[in-house]
């Protein structure tokens, strides 16, 4: 499989002005109902679950998706849609207790693995990404 960039996305910055991470930015429809997601043959869907276990209200403005750490699968259904590893964020009262988890290898058991993750999951990154994940 070859990878061809079809569009140049705009750069964006996650973190404060002295330290952070360079990312690509794009708008998303972020459907709450999975059935409403359009299955376009050139797009991959990343399921994101956000559990707010804190008492404060969460304003979700943007999400940092660690794309290089996600695997790409093709679903066996007739539409042959693409799906990636899922992301689960559990937001607790403190940043220390907040967790980001990437889905396990078994989550899309019936699907065909198209591409493994480009980078291995780094626990260090995931912890660092917690305060960057939600803004």
């Amino acid at each position, binding site marked *: 499989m070859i990878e061809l960039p079809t569009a140049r996305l705009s750069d964006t*910055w996650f973190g404060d002005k002295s*330290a952070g991470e*360079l990312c690509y930015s794009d708008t998303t429809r972020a459907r709450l109902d999975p059935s409403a997601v359009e299955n376009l043959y050139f797009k991959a869907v990343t399921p994101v679950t956000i559990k707010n276990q804190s008492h404060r209200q969460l304003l979700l403005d943007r999400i940092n998706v660690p794309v290089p750490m996600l695997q790409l699968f093709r679903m066996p259904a007739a539409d042959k849609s693409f799906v990636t590893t899922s992301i689960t964020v559990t937001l607790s009262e403190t940043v220390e207790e907040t967790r980001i988890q990437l889905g396990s290898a078994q989550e899309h058991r019936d699907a065909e693995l198209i591409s493994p993750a480009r980078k291995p999951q780094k626990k260090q990154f995931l912890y660092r990404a917690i305060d960057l994940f939600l803004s």
Partner: protein
Amino acid sequence: MEFETLLTPGANVLVNVARAVLLMSVGWVVAQLLSRLSRRIKDNVISPHHKILLAKAIFWIVLVLFLVTALHQLGFKLGVLLGTAGVLTVALGFAAQTSASNLISGLFVLSEESFKIGDIISVGPTTGEVLSIDLLSVKLRTYDNIYVRIPNETIIKSEVKTITKFPIRRFDLVVGIAYRTNIEHARQVLLDVARDNPLCLDEPEPLIILQGFNASSIDIMFAIWSTRENFLALRNSMQEEVKTAFDRAGIEIPFPHMTFYTGADCAPLPIKLVGDTEQAQQQDKPVERNAGFSEQ
């Protein structure tokens, strides 16, 4: 009977000098070897900046140790030498105040770590890449490939900007718009330009500040962010795109108008009036008027 006792006093001195020279030569080689070995330490163990400092420290310590041994071989007593060195230091201190000041400033520059080797810094009018940070001076290579040596005392005394300290940079573009322009419209055009430029970061968001009413324009500061690697590309592309977008949206960037005054003693300027009088058109001659006024 020892070897030295067989020799004449003159030959003895020669042997000692030869030993001292040999010691210094060996010392030089050993210092170089140890210094080079220390440079092989991996970057994740010690930073490149500290690695160079360590290499220099090892080199000079080893060399000084061999020098002391060589002097001892020549018959100098270390205690007397240190005493002489003390007196000499005071004398040198007076004689070489600038060097001593640079040396002490160098220690502060090294310990402060405001910048490291490879950083781009700006000291006064000089901007360039740091090649080395030594005890007496900092060496830079400017963008036009000129080697610049800046004394450490200057570094300590003056304002030093480390351009590559942080990963992202802001570019402030000040642009003037005509008074008749709708400011909200201009603001939207600028934001659209920032959104469409992939090098311009979406976050931190572009900032628009109205700077005030100037003589012939309303000045707007358009502050946009990019990574420091893309800064120059963004700076160039953004100015071009803002001009193009303003032209397309019919927003005028006003510029100061000049009035041409030839002075009372000058000859009148020939001015051709178009559509003024039929007579002038028929005659097709320029109508001469006195100079000393302008038409805009």
